C-alpha cells in the first residue's frame, strides 16, 4: 500500500503524455526527427548501449572520477570547515579568500586546471574536488558556529581537551549542516565531471555524449544523457538512504523541537 500511495500518478501520466507527444511529433516530421529522434528509438539504442562494453567503460570512468573528487573534497572540506569554524583567527585569515573564490563559477577553473595538470584524469578530479569543496566547507563552518555552547561546556566539564571536543562533540553536532553541504555537492560533482569530460575527451559519459553528437548519432547522444540522468538519480537515492540511517536522531530531535 505504502509504495502505491507514494507514486505520483498525475505526475507520472503527464510525463508519459509528454514522451508520447515527443514520439508522434518525431514520427510526423523529418526535420523534428533529426533533432529529437523518436523516444522508442532512443530506448532501443539505450538498451543496446547498456550491453555494450564501451558504454560501461565510460560509465565506470565517470563514476571513478566522481567518487575520487567527491570523497576527497568531503574529507578535506569537512576537516577544514571544522577548523575554520572553531578557530576564529583561522577563519579571519582566510575569510577574504573564501568570499572571493566561493561565488566564482567553478567551470571557470577548468582552464587553470588544464594549465596546471594537463589534460587527463587528474585535472577532472581536481576541478570536481574544487567545486565540491565550497558547499561542504561553508555549511560545515556554519554548523560549527551554530553549535549550542552548552554542548562545548559539557565537553569541558567532562575534562575533554580541544581535539577531543572537536571530534566527539563538534563534529557530530555539526553533522546535519555537513550533510546538507554533502547533498548539494553531490549534484555539483556530477556536473563538473561530465563538463570536464567534454573538454578533456577520451573517456567518460560526458565525452561519450558530446562525441555521439559530433558523429551525428543523435539517438546515442540522448541515450547517453539518459544514462547520466539515471546515474545522478541513483547516486542521490543512495545518498538519501545513508542520510536517513545516519541522521535519524536529527529528524527525531527536530520534530521534538529540541534542536
Amino acid at each position: 500500500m505504502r509504495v502505491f500511495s507514494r507514486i505520483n500518478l498525475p505526475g507520472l501520466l503527464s510525463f508519459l503524455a509528454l514522451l508520447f507527444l515527443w514520439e508522434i511529433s518525431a514520427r510526423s516530421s523529418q526535420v523534428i526527427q533529426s533533432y529529437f529522434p523518436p523516444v522508442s528509438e532512443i530506448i532501443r539504442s539505450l538498451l543496446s548501449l547498456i550491453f555494450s562494453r564501451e558504454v560501461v567503460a565510460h560509465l565506470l570512468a565517470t563514476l571513478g572520477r566522481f567518487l575520487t573528487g567527491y570523497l576527497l573534497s568531503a574529507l578535506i572540506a569537512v576537516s577544514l570547515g571544522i577548523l575554520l569554524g572553531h578557530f576564529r583567527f583561522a577563519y579571519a585569515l582566510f575569510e577574504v579568500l573564501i568570499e572571493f573564490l566561493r561565488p566564482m563559477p567553478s567551470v571557470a577553473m577548468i582552464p587553470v586546471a588544464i594549465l596546471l595538470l594537463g589534460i587527463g584524469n587528474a585535472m577532472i578530479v581536481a576541478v570536481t574536488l574544487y567545486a565540491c569543496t565550497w558547499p561542504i566547507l561553508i555549511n560545515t563552518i556554519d554548523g560549527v558556529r551554530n553549535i549550542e555552547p552548552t554542548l562545548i561546556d559539557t565537553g569541558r566539564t567532562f575534562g575533554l581537551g580541544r581535539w577531543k571536543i572537536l571530534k566527539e562533540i563538534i563534529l557530530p553536532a555539526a553533522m546535519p549542516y555537513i550533510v546538507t553541504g554533502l547533498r548539494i555537492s553531490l549534484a555539483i560533482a556530477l556536473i563538473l565531471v561530465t563538463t570536464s569530460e567534454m573538454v578533456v575527451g577520451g573517456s567518460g559519459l560526458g565525452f561519450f555524449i558530446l562525441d555521439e553528437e559530433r558523429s551525428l548519432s543523435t539517438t546515442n547522444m540522448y541515450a547517453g544523457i539518459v544514462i547520466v540522468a539515471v546515474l545522478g538519480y541513483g547516486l542521490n537515492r543512495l545518498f538519501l538512504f545513508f542520510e536517513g540511517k545516519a541522521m535519524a536522531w536529527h529528524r527525531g530531535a527536530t520534530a521534538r523541537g529540541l534542536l
Partner: protein
Amino acid sequence: MVAILEVKKVSKSYRQLDGESTLAIDEISFRVEKGEFVSLVGPSGCGKTTLLMCIAGLNPPSTGGLVVKDVEVHGPPSNLVLVFQEFNKSLFAWRSILGNVLFGLEAREKRSQDAQGEARRLIKLVGLEGFERHYPWELSGGMQQRVAIARALAYGPEILLMDEPFGSVDALTRLELEDTLLKIWEDLGTTILLVTHDIEEAIYLSDRIYVVSRRPSRILQTIDVDLSRPRHQITTRADAKFMELRNEIYRQISQ
C-alpha cells in the same frame, strides 16, 4: 573535616553591550566539606549559574580564587562535573541513552573492562532501565535530567555541581528525582553542591544551606540543617524544624 571545595572572595562582573559592567557576584566565600550535601538558595537572576560556572572552571571569576582539593582552579578541575541547568541542551542528541552515559565513562579514560555493564548499572540506578536504546528526545524532561545525572555519575566525580536540576520538571517528578538524588548521594558518597531557588528543596536535600542575596549576590546566612536522615518526603517536610528553617530562609531572601 577537610574542605574539598573553597570559594574565596569570588566576584564576577559581566560587560554589557552598552559598555557598562554589571556585578553579578560580589565577593562570595564559602566552603564545602568532603561528602557533604550543600545547597545555595537564592532568587532567580542572582548569579547562581554564574557562580557554578566559575567553580566548574568554565568561566573565570573577575577576582577571587577557587580551590578544589587543594588545587587552584584555572580551567575545569578533573574531579568535578557540572550538571547544567539546561540539561536538555547538554545531552548529546546523536547518542542513545546508553551512548550518553558511556560518554561519561569514556571521558574518564579509565578503561573499564565492562563499560557497557557499568553504564547499564547507572541507568538502572537513576530509574531508566529499559530506555538504554532510546534517544534523549524520546524522553520526558524529568527522564532527560536522569540521563544527565547518570552521565555525570559515570565520570565518577568527587564533586557534583548541580544547577537547578529539577527546575523544569513537574512537581511530582521533582519529588521523585529528589529522592533518587539522595539515594545516589548516600550510596556513592559524592560531594554535592546544588543551587536552587526552591527553599524547601534545599532544606529537604542538604546538610547545609548558604542563603544568597539578590544581585550582586552575597552570602546572607549559613544554615545547618539538622534534620535526621534518611529523609522522607512526608515526615521530613512535616517536621516543625523544617517549617522553622523555611520561614527563616524566606525572611532572609525577601528582605
